[in-house]
């Protein structure tokens, strides 16, 4: 506390007006009309991640070259960074604010880097030693089931996973070709989950080997059996020989590696399965033609995948619709109609309309139908409702049956790995709330990332963690003065000649230097990363450095509320509100 002086008069005053004390008594905070405060806001990438990854946080760790730290951040929310970094369609990147400036951060590549970096250190997630809260069962070892198992194990439950097939991973293992997701990456991440004490019983199929009665010892059940039935085209000849479903073909390639196919293969469909099939078949040395009824613009497969498929020699015929599968001279003969695009349909895409009398034929040794997958509801317990091909659940994943939760492809049309992981996580939280008697709705509100639907386990476990406003930071809220344009990192790819001969991974993992450089491009939207701008530019030296939850704090005794810290924060991590007096 600085001294204030009061003089009787000339007798106790010094000879000349020299200063005797500082001005610290003068609380200029009283001038303030607006009040700045530190407040992290939701980065658009975080908000867009169906798995609920704290993307900005792990990228910041990479920027600090703390790669293990980055892994610690990721594994808080998601046990599958190696998988996601490779196969996720990364909606985070399409929402990345850097996309409005030059090009989005290669988030998927960074996530993959972190996973692979740690794998090289043989890093395992440690098993917790605390007392268990009870037994829970999970049906299906796909991304949803394993994500749920992972989080429940971390929440101190005794978890058993029942898997109908002989191997773990569900769609990750069966449906994704290894040139996109090497099996060892999947094995590594599943074994990390097992290391937490999760027991996986393979070859145990619900309905066949296991009844719901058998599960009554489990306090809660999560069903995530996926969508494995190929959708029918409902055209003549669909059930004939040498006509296969896309998913079946992928399962065969992935699990058995033996498959006899003729030289010419026609594939029907435009989704990711169709592209996966096409690229896999190319690797078997076949000629591949993909038939899609709309144009390239409307193809639901990921753009990069389509690009790579074309590079690898897949021929795509757009605006073609097969109406019959026939046979001629030992070849399958597809009768097709040419299409044109009409009005937009309910999906927002222009609807293909057949051009009359445009019939033509495509010949092939094999025809693969990859027109999407459906849920098999035959084995589900009574009381679980389903509608339009999915099982209906509450927002928290609970079903009509007490203690039974469902998630993953079974309950959603958004059938991506990331969505499955997110739904497994949500189910784990819901099950914990259910078993611990907590209000799930209230909990969800507290731990929602942005406007949702993803949830933050970190905030569930650590309510004291630095708060984050649900507001998603827009590009306009950032201050671009502090960034220079820079090129997005490009993952190197195996040479084309090599790619089309084998199932080895197409892209390679970033080096440490590349990862660091890419991480430095991150705007760190809404998240203070201690850049020091607020401290440096404060005219009133009213930004204090602290060791608290926030690295800096405003000294309201002296802050005049000029707002410089607010406007010079590059990332919108400072807010301003009118001062209440």
């Amino acid at each position: 506390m600085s001294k204030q002086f009061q003089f009787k008069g000339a007798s106790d005053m010094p000879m000349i007006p020299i200063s005797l004390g500082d001005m610290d008594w003068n609380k200029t905070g009283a001038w303030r009309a607006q009040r700045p405060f530190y407040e992290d806001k939701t980065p658009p990438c975080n908000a867009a991640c169906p798995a609920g990854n704290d993307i900005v946080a792990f990228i910041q760790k990479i920027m600090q070259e703390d790669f293990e730290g980055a892994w610690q951040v990721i594994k808080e929310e998601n046990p599958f960074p190696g998988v996601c970094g490779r196969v996720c369609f990364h909606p985070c990147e399409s929402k990345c604010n850097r996309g409005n400036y030059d090009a989005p951060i290669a988030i998927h590549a960074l996530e993959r880097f972190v996973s692979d970096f740690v794998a090289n250190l043989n890093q395992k997630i440690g098993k917790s030693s605390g007392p268990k809260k009870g037994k829970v069962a999970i049906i299906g070892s796909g991304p949803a089931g394993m994500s749920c198992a992972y989080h429940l194990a971390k929440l101190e439950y005794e978890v058993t996973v029942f898997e109908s097939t002989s191997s773990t991973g569900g769609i990750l293992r069966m449906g994704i070709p290894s040139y996109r997701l090497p099996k060892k990456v999947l094995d590594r991440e599943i074994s990390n989950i097992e290391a937490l004490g999760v027991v996986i019983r393979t070859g145990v199929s619900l309905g066949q080997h296991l009844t719901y009665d058998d599960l009554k010892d489990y306090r809660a059940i999560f069903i995530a059996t996926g969508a494995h039935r190929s959708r029918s085209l409902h055209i003549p000849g669909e059930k004939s020989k040498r006509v296969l479903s896309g998913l079946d073909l992928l399962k065969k390639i992935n699990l058995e590696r033996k498959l006899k196919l003729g030289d010419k293969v026609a594939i029907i469909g435009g989704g990711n399965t169709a592209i996966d099939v096409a690229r896999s078949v190319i690797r078997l040395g076949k000629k591949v033609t993909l038939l899609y009824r709309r144009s390239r613009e409307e193809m639901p497969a990921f753009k990069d995948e389509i690009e790579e498929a074309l590079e690898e020699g897949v021929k795509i015929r757009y605006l073609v619709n097969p109406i019959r599968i026939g046979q001629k001279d030992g070849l399958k003969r597809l009768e097709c109609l040419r299409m044109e695009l009409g009005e937009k349909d309910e999906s927002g895409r222009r609807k293909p309309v057949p051009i009359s009398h445009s019939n033509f034929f495509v010949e092939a040794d094999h025809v693969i139908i990859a027109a999407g997958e459906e849920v098999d509801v035959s084995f589900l317990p009574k009381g679980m409702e389903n509608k339009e091909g999915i099982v209906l659940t509450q927002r928290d994943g609970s079903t009509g049956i007490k203690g039974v939760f469902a998630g993953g492809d079974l309950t959603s049309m958004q059938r991506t790995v990331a969505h499955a992981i997110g739904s497994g996580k949500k189910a784990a939280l819901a099950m914990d709330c259910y078993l611990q008697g907590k209000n799930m709705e209230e909990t969800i509100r507290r731990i929602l990332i942005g406007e949702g639907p993803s949830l933050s386990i970190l905030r569930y476990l650590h309510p004291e963690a630095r708060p984050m406003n649900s507001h998603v930071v827009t590009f306009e809220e950032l201050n671009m003065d502090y960034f220079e344009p820079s090129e997005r990192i490009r993952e190197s790819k195996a040479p084309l000649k090599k790619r089309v001969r084998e199932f080895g991974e197409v892209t390679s993992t970033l080096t440490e230097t590349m990862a660091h450089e890419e991480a430095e491009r991150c705007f760190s939207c809404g998240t203070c990363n201690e850049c020091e701008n607020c401290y440096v530019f404060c005219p009133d030296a009213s930004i204090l450095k602290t060791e608290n939850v926030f690295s800096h704090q405003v000294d309201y005794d002296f802050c005049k509320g000029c707002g410089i810290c607010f406007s010079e924060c590059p990332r919108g991590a400072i807010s301003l509100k009118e001062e209440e007096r």
Partner: protein
Amino acid sequence: MRKMEIPLSENLGHGHLACAGCGAAVSMRLTLKALGEKTVMVFPASCWSIVPGFWPYSSFRIPVIHAGFVTGGATASGVRAALDVRGDHESVVTVWAGDGGTFDIGLQALSGAAERNEDFIYICNDNEGYMNTGTQRSSATPLFAWTTTTPVMQPKENPKKDIMAIMADHHIPYAATATIAYPEDLLRKIDKAKRIRGTRFIHLLSPCPPGWRIPSELTIKISRLAVRSRVFPLYEIENGNTYTLQEESHVVPVKEYLKMQGRFSHLSDSEVEVIQKNVERSWERLLKKAEA
């Protein structure tokens, strides 16, 4: 983006009386960080006659001397002489004068001191007008700007005086321009000046929210636009003839700079064009000097 590393010392304490968002207060904080503790500062009349506080207080944590308006160059010469006589050749004597105290009323004393190559750093804290007395025009006020003595019906008719050229022609060892939007550059230049003997001149542009009619939170932004628009290029001059020009990668039209400031809100497109042309000509001149 890289984290800024600047010294933590604060020799301008709390409670000072600068307006909210004062560019000069930022300039001062940063300058003092670069100068360090062993600094004696001389203040000819300016906002800084008042900002530090009224007797018996001062928010400065270094010795400072308030001096007559005209006297920056002279008072500092005397302080330097006294310190030298006392055997203190280490402490840095620094003048902190406004644009009025530098471009106008203090020019003679500054010129005299510079010609004698007096050993001090002279910092012109330029806010482009007599802001302390309520925003009257000075010879540092830019062309067409509004001030209370150049009202919008008759805005300033003359371009700003080229103080850097004047100082360069004194052949002093070091002169540089700097502004708060580039703190590390500012600190580097002051630190460089500190290591040189003789008269060193730093021309600091410090936006003034009330005088420039700008919102207080835009002080830094505008300081940056001054550089990006080349209204206030960043450069150094050694010995009056070696120019080092800092090229800014994001060049913007002067309109971007002008349109944010109330003091230019009356400008017509043709006036903006005149300013743009002037800025380009000055830049060309600087480029030539830098190439020479």
